[in-house]
């Protein structure tokens, strides 16, 4: 048998049922690895040893009485953006360094109900604002493939934990690429579902109209298993749809013969590094071998997605983050001399630089005299971007391209130029603006660093995405490559 930390969720579940090992054993194994190696990668902010072992024991007891379930007794990690009752939830910020939620996010509650075992909470860019994990109050996460490089962000802790085999799988959230880009940079599989597929309740909001939670796993099969558990109607989130959730694992093995894959010319223009382009083309050729038909398409407004995003996301964030005022929870400055001082010092001391920058951009875009030129304009551009996709999906089933313009970059490489960092998400952001589902799959390497292939599906077509991804993974082994030797 493979070492326990090399097993996928699907394998763990099977072996737990076969009593090859107990949930306590595999949970303990991961907790030991975290204890030994987290200091290398810094991918966990909190580790819940007791909670994990208790959940593992409960799962073992249930298994002993014949219970079965795809996540029963399976260890995993939550991004530290999901509220977990009784377990510190920081969102990567000093503002919430002391915050122990009195309630569970819906995603947390669903996975708990299925007997999944949460190992801990993973590191992230502060309030999910970042593409490199460098904005976390708890220090940046190291990419397990090269400790000098970033893991991507904002779900960098989750991506690194899965890549470093410190968790078989993790949850993430994606507002502008925060699942897909770190998945690409760390060589794992990540899925951002259709907006409204997964409840946002209890997931600390960055940009409400863009945020969506999803699985970060080794394989497409595991992503399907996790998505089965995470998605579905929630009365507590009125943006969550009540469209029935199919069994995403049921269709993984279908043939993709005849599948039409659109290749947007805008994603392969001069801005994309030639080696990256070649790597992605090779991956696309694999899909072609499986019977898919590649079709050239256009997404003419895609260049506008970064500008529109950097109005909409900061605008929503500036308002969403107003609740952090030092009154009911979270950080509060010492000895405020009056109310104004309480607010201003709490927020100035509690938020990091990038968060403050985005709050400012957002507040500015919404302020009197600028609303029409910025916010309203961005919402109009957003519709144009959506229409591009709607037209494209009249011709093709899936759209494919690179996840990120380059593999993982070095710490500090983007310097303090926020715009350079923002362009890191150039291929992922349009998908959030349009609300579509998309995945990133390990699809090769460049300079020994993982390269991600992005697949974008039509609304609620996660089944088709996962099917395509799984088929790709039956003929490639990039997703099995590991940066760790022990």
């Amino acid at each position, binding site marked *: 048998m493979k070492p326990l930390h090399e097993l996928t969720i699907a394998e763990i579940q099977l072996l737990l049922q076969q009593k090859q090992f107990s949930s306590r054993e595999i949970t303990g194994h991961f907790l030991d690895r975290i204890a030994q190696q987290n200091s290398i990668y810094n991918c966990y902010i909190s580790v819940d040893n007791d909670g994990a072992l208790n959940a593992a024991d409960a799962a073992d007891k249930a298994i002993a009485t014949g219970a079965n379930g795809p996540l029963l007794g399976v260890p995993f990690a939550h991004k530290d953006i999901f509220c977990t009752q009784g377990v510190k939830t920081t969102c990567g910020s000093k503002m919430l360094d002391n915050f122990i939620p009195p309630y569970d996010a819906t995603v947390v509650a669903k996975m708990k109900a299925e007997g999944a075992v949460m190992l801990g909470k993973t590191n992230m860019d502060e309030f999910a604002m970042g593409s490199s994990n460098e904005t976390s109050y708890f220090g940046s996460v190291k990419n397990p493939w090269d400790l000098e490089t970033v893991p991507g962000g904002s779900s960098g802790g989750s991506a690194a934990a899965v890549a470093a085999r410190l968790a078989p799988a993790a949850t993430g959230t994606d507002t502008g690429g925060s699942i897909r880009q770190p998945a690409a940079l760390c060589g794992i599989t990540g899925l951002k579902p259709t907006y409204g597929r997964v409840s946002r309740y209890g997931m600390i909001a960055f940009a409400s109209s863009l945020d969506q939670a999803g699985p970060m796993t080794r394989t497409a099969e595991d992503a399907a298993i996790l998505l089965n558990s995470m998605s579905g109607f929630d009365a507590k989130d009125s943006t969550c749809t009540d469209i029935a959730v199919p069994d995403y694992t049921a269709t993984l093995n279908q043939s993709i013969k005849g599948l039409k894959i659109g290749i947007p010319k805008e994603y392969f223009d001069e801005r994309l590094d030639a080696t990256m382009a070649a790597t992605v083309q090779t991956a696309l050729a694999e899909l072609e071998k499986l019977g898919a038909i590649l079709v050239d398409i256009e997404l003419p407004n895609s260049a506008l997605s970064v500008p529109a995003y950097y109005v909409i996301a900061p605008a929503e964030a500036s308002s969403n983050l107003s609740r952090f005022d030092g009154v*009911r929870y979270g950080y509060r400055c010492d000895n405020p001399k009056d109310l104004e001082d309480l607010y201003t010092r709490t927020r100035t001391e509690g938020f990091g630089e990038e968060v403050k920058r985005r709050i400012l951009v957002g507040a500015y875009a919404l302020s009197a005299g600028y609303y029409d030129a910025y916010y309203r304009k961005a919402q109009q551009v957003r519709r144009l971007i959506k229409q591009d996709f709607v037209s494209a999906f009249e011709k093709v089933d899936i759209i494919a391209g690179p996840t990120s313009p380059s593999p993982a970059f070095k710490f500090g490489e983007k310097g303090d130029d926020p715009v350079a960092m923002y362009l890191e998400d150039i291929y992922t952001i349009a998908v959030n603006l349009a609300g579509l589902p998309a995945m990133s799959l390990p699809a090769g390497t460049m300079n020994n660093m993982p390269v991600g292939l992005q697949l974008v599906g039509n609304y609620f077509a996660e089944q088709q995405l996962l099917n395509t991804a799984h088929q790709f993974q039956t003929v490639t082994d990039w997703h099995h490559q590991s940066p760790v030797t022990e």
Partner: protein
Amino acid sequence: MTITPEQIAITAGLAKLKIDGDEAIEVAKRIGAILELVDQMQAVDTSNVEPMANSLDAVQRLRVDAAIQPENPIDVRDTLQQIAPATEDGLYLVPKVID
């Protein structure tokens, strides 16, 4: 569009952040670069485009009016206030509010 350090200070005030002096000059430079990026949108004609607030153009589902009464509301409150920086007699405390 550019943004001045004064505008930065005013906007920071709206957001209850303190950014002034040299910091405002520095922040204005960076935010100016972001606004420049954002201004690429202005080149597109959107005069006949309806703004899109929600990607699915979905409509709101409303909730049936029913109150949830906790069995022991004082206990629930006390639990919720355990994470609060300052409370007394069940109230959240803030520096004196002057109308």
